[in-house]
């Protein structure tokens, strides 16, 4: 009788344990993306309190302002453009596997572009322009096979433009202007679509072979408040 009792209670506790663990797991998986975004919040300086609604105790981040989810409560958009944010990006952003739009433009974000962004295989738009990002363009970004908009202009990025980016067939808009990039400009693959406009104001970038160096125009930085002349077209294409 004792043996039976102990076996029953033993199996019951095992089942309870498993159930408890399962529930915990459910809660955790709903929060992996929330945790990632919370890590971002912790690494950013937010004087305007735009991230005030980012409450990590909630079951998922889908009710947070500036966060959009799909029908399965997975994050598809982060819209924090022009939010007066500073601080740095975090590698945890790479876990947002359904992310399509990462809009962090027009802030004062410093540091590097995390290589982990290369795991965001559903990304359609990567807008980090008008910030103070440094370091190189990670060549892991070449894995973003659905990327249509890659706008990294107006930062302090250095190094070469990764040749592997030319493999992204879906790329429609590329803006790397106003940086400190060096090396050659790729012209093969999807990059045959891009003109000197995309690379403008990178003083040490080698001019495109199709046009003479003198034809690289000098556009003003994207900041609208500058008193400078509009792009003057070269006399020869």
């Amino acid at each position, binding site marked *: 009788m004792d043996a039976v009792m102990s076996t029953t209670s033993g199996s019951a506790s095992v089942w309870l344990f498993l159930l408890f663990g399962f529930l915990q797991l459910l809660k955790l998986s709903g929060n992996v993306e929330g945790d990632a975004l919370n890590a971002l919040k912790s690494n950013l300086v937010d004087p305007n309190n735009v991230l005030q609604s980012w409450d990590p105790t909630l079951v998922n981040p889908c009710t947070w302002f500036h966060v959009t989810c799909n029908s399965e409560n997975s994050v598809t958009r982060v819209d924090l453009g022009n939010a007066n944010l500073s601080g740095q990006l975090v590698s945890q952003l790479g876990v947002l596997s359904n992310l399509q739009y990462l809009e962090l433009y027009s802030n004062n974000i410093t540091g590097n572009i995390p290589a982990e962004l290369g795991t965001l295989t559903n990304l359609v738009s990567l807008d980090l322009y008008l910030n103070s990002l440094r370091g190189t363009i990670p060549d892991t970004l070449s894995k973003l096979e659905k990327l249509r908009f890659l706008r990294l202009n107006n930062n302090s990025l250095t190094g070469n433009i990764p040749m592997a980016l030319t493999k992204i067939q879906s790329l429609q808009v590329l803006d790397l202007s106003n940086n400190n990039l060096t090396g050659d400009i790729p012209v093969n693959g999807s990059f045959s679509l891009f003109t000197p*406009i995309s690379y403008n104001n990178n003083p040490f970038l080698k001019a495109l072979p199709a046009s003479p160096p003198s034809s690289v125009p000098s556009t003003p930085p994207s*900041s609208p408040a500058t008193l400078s002349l509009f792009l003057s077209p070269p006399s020869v294409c």
Partner: protein
Amino acid sequence: MAFLMRMLLRKQDAGIFIGSVLCWLLLSCGFSFGVESDINCLKSIKASLQDTLGYLNSSWDFNNNTEGFICNFLGIECWHPHESKVLNIKLSDLGLKGSFPRGVENCTSLTGLDLSSNQLNGPLPTDIDKIITFITSLDLSSNSFTGQIPMKLSNCSYLNVLKLDNNKFSGIIPPELGQLTRIKTFSVANNQLSGQVPTFSNNASITADSYANNPGLCGGPLKQCQGSAKKSNSVVIVGAGVGGATFAALIVVIGLFFFMRRVSARKKEEDPEGNKWAKSFKKTKG
């Protein structure tokens, strides 16, 4: 004295007032100066085209002056959502009339222009390379454009797509278009073109379909141009030259022959026994 002082003060106030107005004007100009050209570009396009269906009239409202407002215009795609820097203009099938809108020149960051399926007419500007310098995709198909395809299109070296089909272009296709190394799509079908087609560097997808329905195009994927006719022409010219020279020489020889005969006949007349001089020489000798 007090009155003068008051006048001076008033002038100072006026000066400050004018100064601050100018400052304000300058600042507001400064804010929009960088994008002024693109806004003017669209204003000019709207002014130069006949908007028969009223699409531009309803959508292109220049009164709202917020940052990047033109980015929400029908057919306009910007480089960045809140900056008035035009990336593409797509105005296909909008019942537009008029000639090629030269005002596009002020959209200095333009990479795509699609004016297909409208009722545009007239020739294309010969200095088109100055107007759409960085164009990568140009679609003017299904309009009523006339005249020659501008040779200077060959300077638009970033062209990937060039669609000029279903128009009334005439004359030859400028062979210089073959210098466009990035061309992926090229079509001039259904025009009034003739002559040798250009030789493109990588004849990727330029098949006979690209040239279909033109009265006199030849070469490339089409049947060979009439090069043999040219050859026989030069043969004829050379032959005629040789023949003429030979004929002239013959005339000269014949003429000389008759002349000589006349000369000897006259000699005989003068000296029937012939060689009088020789006989006299013999006499002296003998």
